[in-house]
């Protein structure tokens, strides 16, 4: 079955694959063009159209979109390149966020606190990996989804109120200051048209700048990793682990390395996620994991820029769906709370359609498509 698909696809597409640099330029160009278009529409179009565009623009550049993009880059190392089914990326994010926020609240300086957050993700990956990576891939999926839920429930537990704030979570103002104090952007408000944020405020330009810079850094790291012989080894393991073993490679160690790196990126995403907000265990539950998966499949698994493009498209598209439903459907049929839910339903349907009709995502090479179940 797989063979047939692969053969047909090769016959279909004989063009040479794009180089990462070309792909990067195309993606960067498309994203910038899209944002400029949104900005122009948002600035000048009247009524609902303008407001939808403004909402999409704000969502597209939001620090939380950047945070999810980082976590999706980690997930891409897991699933796209190594074939590891991690269905608990939100658990890695939550652990990173807790590690960071609790450290700062206990008086740890910023950089060590970030490192503690990352280490929390690393240790989590090791704990999950040691028992499961010698088994078939499905076991990792089962273990990650349950372990992520365990982290969330432990975080919610009232026994830990002193540390985690239980279900209330940790308020942003209790851990964010060392980060905002680093800003060299100065004070006051800065506007580009309708995009108007404080320079250093809670949810201002500074956190956007840092978030998207980290995204760029993570893309660069992914590129360096996967173009190397180590990256080739990852793809080999994804394709057939026994073949890799028969060539004398230690597949377990390499899978563990991939799980740890992707998990650390998940934790980093979690830290960025809570910088402009608060640490809420329920905000980083199963649904966030599935958003990450949708973004990954949308952008294209096993591509360098797919996770970033997918995250931006995913969040902007949801605002578009909600905004359009708000504007078109009268309130008597669906009020704005219901359109919110409706938008998530559409997202779920979109994920199914995506997997059926374009499994390689926007950027993926059809010949290297991941859906091989």
């Amino acid at each position, binding site marked *: 079955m797989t063979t047939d698909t692969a053969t047909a696809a090769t016959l279909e597409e004989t063009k040479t694959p794009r180089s990462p640099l070309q792909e990067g330029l195309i993606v960067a160009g498309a994203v910038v063009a899209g944002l400029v278009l949104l900005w122009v529409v948002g600035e000048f179009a009247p009524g609902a159209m303008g407001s939808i565009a403004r909402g999409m623009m704000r969502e597209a550049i939001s620090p939380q979109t950047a945070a999810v993009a980082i976590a999706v880059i980690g997930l891409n190392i897991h699933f796209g390149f190594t074939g590891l089914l991690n269905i608990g990326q939100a658990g890695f994010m939550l652990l990173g966020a807790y590690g960071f926020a609790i450290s700062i609240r206990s008086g740890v300086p910023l950089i060590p606190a970030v490192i503690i957050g990352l280490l929390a993700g690393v240790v989590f990956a090791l704990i999950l990996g040691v028992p499961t990576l010698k088994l078939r891939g499905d076991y990792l999926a089962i273990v990650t989804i349950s372990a992520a839920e365990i982290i969330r429930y432990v975080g919610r537990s009232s026994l830990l109120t002193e540390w985690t704030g239980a279900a209330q979570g940790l308020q942003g103002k209790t851990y964010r200051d060392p980060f905002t104090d680093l800003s060299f952007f100065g004070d006051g408000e800065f506007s580009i048209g309708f995009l108007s944020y404080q320079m250093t405020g809670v949810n201002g330009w500074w956190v956007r700048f840092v978030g998207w810079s980290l995204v760029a850094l993570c893309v660069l790291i992914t590129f360096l990793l996967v173009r*190397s012989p180590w990256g*080739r080894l990852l793809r080999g393991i994804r394709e057939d682990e*026994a073949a890799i073993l028969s060539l004398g490679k230690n597949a377990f160690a390499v899978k563990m390395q991939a799980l740890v790196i992707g998990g650390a990126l998940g934790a980093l995403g979690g830290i960025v996620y809570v910088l402009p907000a608060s640490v809420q265990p329920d905000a980083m539950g199963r649904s966030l994991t599935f958003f990450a998966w949708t973004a990954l499949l949308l952008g294209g698994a096993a591509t360098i820029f797919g996770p970033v493009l997918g995250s931006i498209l995913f969040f902007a598209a949801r605002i578009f769906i909600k905004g359009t439903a708000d504007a078109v459907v009268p309130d008597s049929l669906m009020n704005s709370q219901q359109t919110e839910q409706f938008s998530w339903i559409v997202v779920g349907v979109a994920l199914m359609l995506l997997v059926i009709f374009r499994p390689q995502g926007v950027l993926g090479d059809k010949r290297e498509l991941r859906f091989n179940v």
Partner: protein
Amino acid sequence: MSEATVSTGFNPADPESRRRLMAGVDAVPGSAKPDAILKVDNITRAFGGMTAVDVDHLEVQRGVITALIGPNGAGKTTFFNLITGFDKPSSAGSGAHWSFQGKTLDKTSASSVARSGMVRTFQLTKALNRMTVLDNMMLGARDQSGENLLKCCFKPLWSGQEKDIEVRAKDLLQRFKLLEKKDDYAGSLSGGQRKLLEMARALMSEPTMIMLDEPMAGVNPALTQSLLGHIQALRDDGMTVLFVEHDMHMVRHISDWVVVMAEGKIVAEGAADVVMSDPAVIDAYLGAHHDADLGDDSLMTEETMAQLAREARIEEGTSNE
């Protein structure tokens, strides 16, 4: 390896030398070899109540081509899996012991077995479908510094070695007539081409001994000829070859020694012509008409056909009882 061959005065590239060497070996199951590279003792593997492999003793001679033949279900592939670390013997801990070049492999993982120089291929080909043919090949090379996580981000640390590996990979692809496919995904190759790719990839790791599990299944006759040439060339360069194959023509043509398995046990050993005239082997595996070429009309004389028809009737009769 070459030292050992020199000391015994044995030259693997010389047919006469090989014949002389193997002529001194008793044609009995489990016989001792003058210079055994692989020694296996008391290895059994049971699946539920069925014993798939039950080998008391087997030695494989260094520097020659040994064929492992036997009917379907004889345990040949399971035997391969056991000694390469892909499966664990049921007799582990109770007398099972096997060693390669004197190194005990009882508790060695599959990847360590491969690193020690014994590299295998698979009956069901394991081409890495969504990687290019060249990437498949380059994965085979051993000791790549770029496969170290700490070094892989810095290209200058591995680009030199990468170039050497690529040259070697292209050279091997050329020999296996796959060079023009190097940028295609391995999944787009035909079944026979994948067999070739898998074998070429195994050679990238420069093994001391290569274990081929049905290397000719699905490969066309012209390619089979050149593949046979490759295998013989490997042997002439000093590599030890152990292969499982059903094609008797190939077994007869290239093997210096034949080991026959049936129902998990080694039932016969010897030079190809000796083994193939062994009544037990003919009975268990080859069948009475193993020499008749069913594809050649000139052999389909009326007498032969009548004889075959008579036998078919007799077998039908016995199976009806």
